[in-house]
């Protein structure tokens, strides 16, 4: 049965195509690692080297030790920001989603409409309004200024609301008979049952936060509040001489997420599919 055009290819040809494409997609990773382990002379040489020998691991220590790059501090900032943003934004969305799905209060529909309306606002374009508010509260160059605007994801609220609407009511009914109030029902029954959803959306939030560029660029103007992306970008746009150092910088900013993709891929795929299908 041939249900798509690739079905007509013979298995061998299809395997070859898949292998070729896989190689193309992974090539940039190979180049990044190879270049990070070369020395400047080797990189400038027109003679191609497949793999550096010896490997120049000192590029990495030089990168982290260079006081003008602030790379160590920036990596720490990024880890802290993404490490706070992912769980907090996901929990806030889950709690709000539960409230909108289950707790009958007058005016709930209006409030939900106000949440939905914010979905129409495209994320990055509004950096000027967000800067105005965060700046007026003294958030420039602060950790909370970097984190706070990213904690409130209306889209995740809707995903969680749908999730809790489809959650079997009988289970909660039993908890209610045991004397749990609304908050107890959420805390003891609904939240513990949301593990996969929390992990999926949390993983996506971590990735978005770690890779964010425009907002950290706008709000983190002092090197002490740079994130890894800003430090790398500053390194890239300020000079082009220390090439192996640049690639080493790329490796250290990319490696944590690649590791996460390999470990938590199931949740990431699930998260993309969930948000996309409802998107």
């Amino acid at each position, binding site marked *: 049965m041939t249900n798509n055009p690739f079905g007509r290819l013979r298995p061998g040809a299809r395997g070859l*195509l898949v292998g070729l494409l896989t190689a193309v997609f992974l090539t940039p990773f190979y180049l990044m690692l190879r270049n990070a382990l070369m020395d400047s002379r080797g990189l400038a040489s027109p003679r191609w080297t497949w793999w550096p020998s010896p490997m120049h691991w000192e590029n990495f220590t030089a990168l982290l030790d260079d006081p003008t790059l602030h790379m160590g501090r920036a990596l720490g900032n990024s880890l802290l920001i993404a490490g706070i943003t992912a769980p907090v934004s996901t929990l806030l969305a889950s709690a709000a989603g539960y409230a909108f799905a289950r707790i009958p209060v007058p005016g709930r529909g209006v409030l939900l409409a106000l949440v939905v309306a914010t979905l*129409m606002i495209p994320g990055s*374009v509004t950096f000027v*309004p967000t800067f105005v508010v965060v700046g007026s509260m003294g958030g420039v160059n602060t950790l909370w200024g970097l984190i706070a605007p990213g904690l409130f994801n209306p889209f995740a609220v809707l995903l969680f609301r749908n999730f809790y609407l489809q959650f079997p009511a009988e289970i909660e009914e039993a908890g209610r008979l045991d004397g749990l109030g*609304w908050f107890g029902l959420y805390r003891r029954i609904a939240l513990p049952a949301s593990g996969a959803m929390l992990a999926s959306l949390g993983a996506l939030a971590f990735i978005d936060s770690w890779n964010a560029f425009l907002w950290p660029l706008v709000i983190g103007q002092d090197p002490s509040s740079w994130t890894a992306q800003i430090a790398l970008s500053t390194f890239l746009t300020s000079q082009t001489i220390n090439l192996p150092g640049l690639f080493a910088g790329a490796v250290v900013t990319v490696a944590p997420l690649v590791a*996460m993709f390999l470990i938590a891929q199931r949740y*990431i795929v699930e998260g993309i*599919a969930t948000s996309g*299908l409802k998107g």
Partner: protein
Amino acid sequence: MNATPDSTRSFGRAASPATQPWVHAPARRPGRADRRAWGAFALLAGPMLIGLGTFKYVAIGWSFLLSLSDAHGTIALGHWVGLDNYRHLLADPAFRSSLVRIVLFTLAIVPVTFAVSLGLALLVHRVRRGRAVVRTAFLIPAAVSYVAASLLWKMCLFNGLPAGIANTVGGWFGMAAVPWLQTTDPPLYWIVLVTLRLWLQVGFYMVLFLAGLQAVPRDVYEAAALDGATGLRLLRRITLPMLRNTSVTVLMLQFIAAFQAFDEFYNLFNSGLSGGGTAPVRTPLVYLYDTAMGAQDYGLGSAGAFVLTALIVAVTLVQGRLTGFGKGGE
């Protein structure tokens, strides 16, 4: 990242009707039960509502007032200038050309990404052995930031040196070595921009298409195959119509993302404050960044944010109307 809440699910996992128990909760003392419900609601939804209120509603309201003010180097209101900022913005050739450029960029990147991600999904869907490995290989570039990818594209793949990767590959086909990023006629830098975004994004959309493909019932294909349909015909008559909702979602997400392009333009062309605008192309967001953060003109910057938001919302709505987005949903 998303602009529309509508559900696109109409097959596959059937959407169950909304179950809302306890709308008429057995409340002997309604006053007290009401207060309890309000308390829990405020506790659970309150932080989110306050956050959205502050960072969306207050921000946008304030910024709207700023867009009607002369606000150089200040975010204080008071110096009203009416629609001057909007007039100035729309008359500025730099802003206009940034709009033209981003439309061209969107027209280039969206169909290519759409076709490649759909193709990869169809391919991966057919792979039986090692599917997880192949899927990972296509998805993992999504872990890379635009900054790191720009670095790789600018300093390695398209570095313009005769021994650079792109020039070496071009040489196999008899092309002379060219400085990719600096070549504006013909605009070779577009190849750099499109391939970069393609590599980063295509896996994400492939996963969406794969989820859509898995939702297509097998017996639909079996029935069609019994009728003698094969290959491209099956694709056109069955697979693509069944992926309609996914396709609309993918197009919309791509459009919104492309229109807000900033990171790769900033990093590839040094177009930020330090680089002094060497880019052959400034996107509207780069223009806004220069206006608000560089020149500290928050009035003009706010006006720009509103013009762009209006454009994105308008196109999204038109696209939704044309493709019947949301119809046949929950």
